[in-house]
């Protein structure tokens, strides 16, 4: 039972990140890989504050603001430069955040990470914390659904499908891109605070490349511009490997197996079924 609670909480947090990121990637057509770094920004902000006596709730708010703010900075180049270049910047950004985490030891405790993070009072019980996480997920889903099903969401899709035409129809493309990225960033920041409180310990390893590919694969395999697709993508990709946990595989092998499978699925989807499981759009055509 304890294992089940753990699994649900973890998946709920992943899903928060994935559906947030589905908005800039699937609806706005921005292939950004910054999600893992924004998660790290959120988690570290929350962790640092919480280990200095701040309550979880303030930590959450701070995490959201920090991640949103950093997203804003990262989004600025999106106005002037071509899409492929933008993706490259987001890749480079992963390395920058990683370097900051590992080297700014006075604040982030470097490779050792931050330990002893406490759960919010009243939610120390794993079941209660799980419920809180799921609640946060549902709120995120509800909020984002409202955004993408509104005319604003359509405007985002117009930017994805043809940004030149969108401009000539009076849509401020740069502003739309920035808002899309910042919105995702804010929710990912919140997810980061949950990561910190859930694991009660964070370090650079938590936020590294295999998660980047997992999140991207979940969105693309599930299908762009579809929350249901993102949810299914997350569940499928996460759960195919869970059983392996219980088999005597050497841990290093599992890592490369996950990495290999996610990237292979991503490749196959791009080659043979660009809309994924139930996407409404495809990138780059």
């Amino acid at each position, binding site marked *: 039972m304890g294992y089940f609670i753990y699994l649900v909480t973890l998946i709920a947090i992943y899903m928060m990140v994935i559906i947030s990121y589905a908005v800039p990637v699937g609806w706005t057509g921005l292939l950004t890989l910054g999600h893992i770094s924004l998660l790290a920004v959120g988690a570290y902000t929350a962790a640092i504050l919480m280990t200095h006596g701040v309550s979880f709730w303030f930590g959450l708010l701070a995490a959201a603001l920090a991640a949103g703010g950093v997203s804003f900075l990262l989004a600025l180049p999106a106005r002037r430069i071509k899409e492929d270049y933008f993706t490259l910047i987001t890749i480079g950004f992963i390395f920058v955040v990683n370097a900051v985490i590992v080297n700014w030891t006075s604040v982030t405790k470097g490779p050792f990470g931050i330990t002893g993070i406490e759960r919010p009072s009243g939610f120390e019980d794993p079941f209660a914390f799980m419920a809180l996480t799921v609640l946060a997920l549902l709120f995120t889903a509800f909020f984002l659904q409202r955004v993408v099903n509104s005319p604003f969401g359509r405007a985002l899709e117009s930017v994805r*499908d043809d940004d030149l*035409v969108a*401009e000539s129809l009076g849509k401020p493309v740069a502003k739309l891109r920035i808002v899309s990225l910042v919105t995702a960033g804010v929710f990912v920041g919140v997810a980061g605070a949950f990561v910190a409180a859930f694991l009660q310990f964070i370090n650079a390893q938590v936020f590294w490349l295999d998660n980047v590919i997992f999140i991207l694969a979940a969105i693309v395999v599930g299908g762009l511009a579809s929350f249901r697709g993102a949810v299914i993508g997350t569940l499928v990709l996460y759960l195919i490997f869970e059983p392996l946990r219980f088999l005597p595989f050497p841990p290093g092998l599992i890592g490369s197996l996950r990495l290999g499978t996610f990237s292979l699925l991503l490749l196959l989807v791009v080659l043979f079924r660009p809309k994924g499981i139930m996407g409404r759009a495809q990138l780059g055509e």
Partner: protein
Amino acid sequence: MILDVKDLSKSFGGVRAVRACGFNVSEGKITALIGPNGAGKTTIFDLVNGFLSADEGRIFFRGYDITNLSAWERSRAGMSRTFQLSRLFKNLTLRENFVLAIRQNDDKFWKMFFSKHDEHEFDSRIKEAMEFLGFKKELGTKVTELSYGEQKLFDLTRAYLNPHTMLLLDEPVAGVNPVLRESLKKIMLKLKERGETILLIEHDMDFVHAVADRVIVLDQGSVLTEGEPEKVFHDGRVLEVYLGSA
């Protein structure tokens, strides 16, 4: 004079695509921009609607200097254009494409979040426009299913639905079958009747002769001559520029 272009210049690498180009467009009239390939017509369109920024020169629209405005600001100011090769929001339906053209406030995040939205809010307006322009198609169709001719009509309808005071039409009858061509001639004149101001680029001289009030001839990036179609088509220099360029 709704559009006044002064001394526009634009180079790409070492090539001067447009040089010291100047002309104006009168309100309520149809003005045609013609010239041989490479004369700079589409570049001028891109400069006017904001996709390109000029190296030199100024553009005045309804009396305001819009030279430094971005494309979306110019669109909000009243410019609406079509494209040589039809561009569509291919993952969306016909209805969704049109609604995007009509709405001008959909970039307001919180306003859109808190308001009630109805997919079919603009259906009657869209249907009226489609009927006026002779475009018959189910609103729920995916735009990718449109034929070439239908795409041309779609482009025109979208530009028409986009709130505007001037239409920029980039080769409205290029590659279009003769029946649609004749239909589009009539549509142009109907639009003029409704008070529309149109600036168009075309290669089809018959079409230009039938609809244009004024013709501007471009050659190598600047204006060669301009005037009424009759006069321009009999101008020796114009014929030379079209036939003589080896």
